[in-house]
């Protein structure tokens, strides 16, 4: 079963007088439970591809399928619903809601999903324990380290039990030890929950965790490596 399928995606941005091709006829397929890294230098198109897969950005042409459903032609509301139920996001700068505690940040998404209060509490406790934040549930982001904040972001991303997690430079603000811990957490979640991970990065240490590495340059896929075989 295919988790993500992109067919001939094109996306062009205008920057001043110049047209920049962020995606240039990109086609990929990612299997369910995949663990994929998108690697590219800055401006290579990895974030644009991630945004297109996540329904945050609509490509100029081409088709995007998530769990078999075509999403590039969905309305804004339907895309929001898709992201809420099926896709988890982890961002470079953690992007937690600063006035909510770790637990509340995780529960917030569940509340929007309509999960009952008692269930929310139970699930958030379990998820925060799974990501290694037991005992820190009532701390606000400002009271946590970068690594801990990113773990909260991961917990928030998996709170809705999504089939797909998209992570954009998740280790960019972390030291090497914390980066490794985060990637081990991703690996653990991928193996135990069968969640598909697509990670955009240019960090070589992150790439080594991926089973599949897709290299991009100037909006095109230039390499697609099965790292298990390598």
């Amino acid at each position, binding site marked *: 079963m295919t988790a993500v399928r992109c067919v001939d995606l094109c996306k062009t941005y205008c920057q001043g007088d110049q047209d920049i091709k962020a995606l240039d006829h990109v086609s990929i397929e990612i299997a369910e439970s995949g663990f994929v890294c998108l690697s590219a230098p800055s401006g290579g198109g990895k974030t644009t591809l991630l*945004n297109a897969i*996540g329904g*945050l*950005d609509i490509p100029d042409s081409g088709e995007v399928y998530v769990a078999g459903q075509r999403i590039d032609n969905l309305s*804004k*509301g339907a895309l*929001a*619903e*898709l*992201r*809420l*139920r099926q*896709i988890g*996001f982890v*961002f470079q700068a953690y*992007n937690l*809601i*600063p*006035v*909510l505690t770790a637990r*509340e940040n995780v*529960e*917030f*998404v569940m*509340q*929007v999903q309509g999960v009952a209060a008692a269930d929310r509490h139970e699930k958030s406790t379990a998820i925060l324990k799974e990501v290694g934040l037991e005992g820190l549930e009532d701390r606000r982001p400002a009271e946590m380290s970068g690594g801990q904040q990113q773990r909260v972001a991961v917990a*928030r991303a998996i709170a*809705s039990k999504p089939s797909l997690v998209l992570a954009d430079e998740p280790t960019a603000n972390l030291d090497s030890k914390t980066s490794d811990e985060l990637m081990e957490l991703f690996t653990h979640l991928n193996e135990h929950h069968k969640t598909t991970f697509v990670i955009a990065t240019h960090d070589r240490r992150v790439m080594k965790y991926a089973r599949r590495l897709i290299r991009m340059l100037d909006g095109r896929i230039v390499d697609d490596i099965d790292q298990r075989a390598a």
Partner: protein
Amino acid sequence: MSIVLRLAWRNLWRQPRRTWLTTGAMVFSNLLLVFMMSLQFGMYGLMIDNTLQVFTGHLQVQAPGYKDDQKMRQTVADVLPLADAIRAELGSDRVAARGWAFALASSEERSFGIGIYGVETVFEPQVSNIPGLVSDGRYLASNDAAEIVIGKVLARNLRVAVGDELTLLGSGVDGSFAAAVVNVVGIFDSGVKDIDRNIAEMPIATFQETFFLDGAGHQIAIVADNLDAVPEIQSRVRSVLPSDGDLLVLDWNELQPGLKQAIQADMGSNFFMYFVLVVLVAFSVLNTQLMSVLERTREFGIVMALGLKPGRLGRLVILETAMMGLMGTGLGIVAGGLLTLWFTGNGLSLPGMDEMAAQFNLPARMYPEVSALSLLAGPLVVFLFTMLAAVYPALRLRWQNPVEAMRAA
């Protein structure tokens, strides 16, 4: 408490100084509105009571057309028995029959045209405060005495004092020549020059005899305990009127249309001021909420990326505004209510207000009147405008693209 409520509440206190400043503006305007409206309503009540208690009363029984023409022949027949019947029906002494005629009043030195009221000497003090304003001499003693009380200005103009005689010349109800000689027994000082210059009162029986009214009069004045009781009294008085007659029972608004118009004009100008105040507060809220939304653009982009629909975010902004608005409304009502209550007991007097107040039949010291309307109307309008001010920042989120929002600094 729901996370959304917690989030909204905590968002308010991200910038506590800004929230307090905006809430403070709401509290101040609500305080001002509660106090000013209470003072205004209290002033109107006093204005109406004081104006009506001078002479008019809350209700009058008259012949049709008399209010506009005041012709001698538009009479109320058997006015004294009718006044008795009304007193019996209402169980109140605040009912008095009157007659009115124009006459030339002459002293030894001068003559002036004046309006003369024939009054029931026992009951007139119950419906008018003129008898209580006699500053020299006394008020009329009996219904058939040949005596008169006149205003201070008229006494000065005629150059008469208590004990002097006046000759009255006029027309009787049948058009015949009417004349009487009466003793000045009292001089009143109402403070209203028109009344003090043009009005005189004499006993009703003497008046009826002088002007050949044969038991008739021109009006029966009735005073109610308060304005709210007027409609009920009006219908009870109607039930006492003879079924074959076509007498009218006019209320204070029909008798003194200018009074209501003056109040409405004053309300109009005051409400314009209140409106300006409310709009200023609304702009302050708009500014606060817009700033609050703009500085959280990136955060909103993130939660939209997580799957929150813009409408839900808009509702969050509305909820934050409602919380701030409720705080401003609650504190404003309490502060305004306490301030008003204090002045309700102690009154408010501004330097130089005495003369202006007298022109409107108001005392020099004003007393606000606290009511549910004066306490809630202003703050509710402020709250409504506060919520309206949140609509634009909330709607703005609908057009926000999550990717662009996340790029915001």
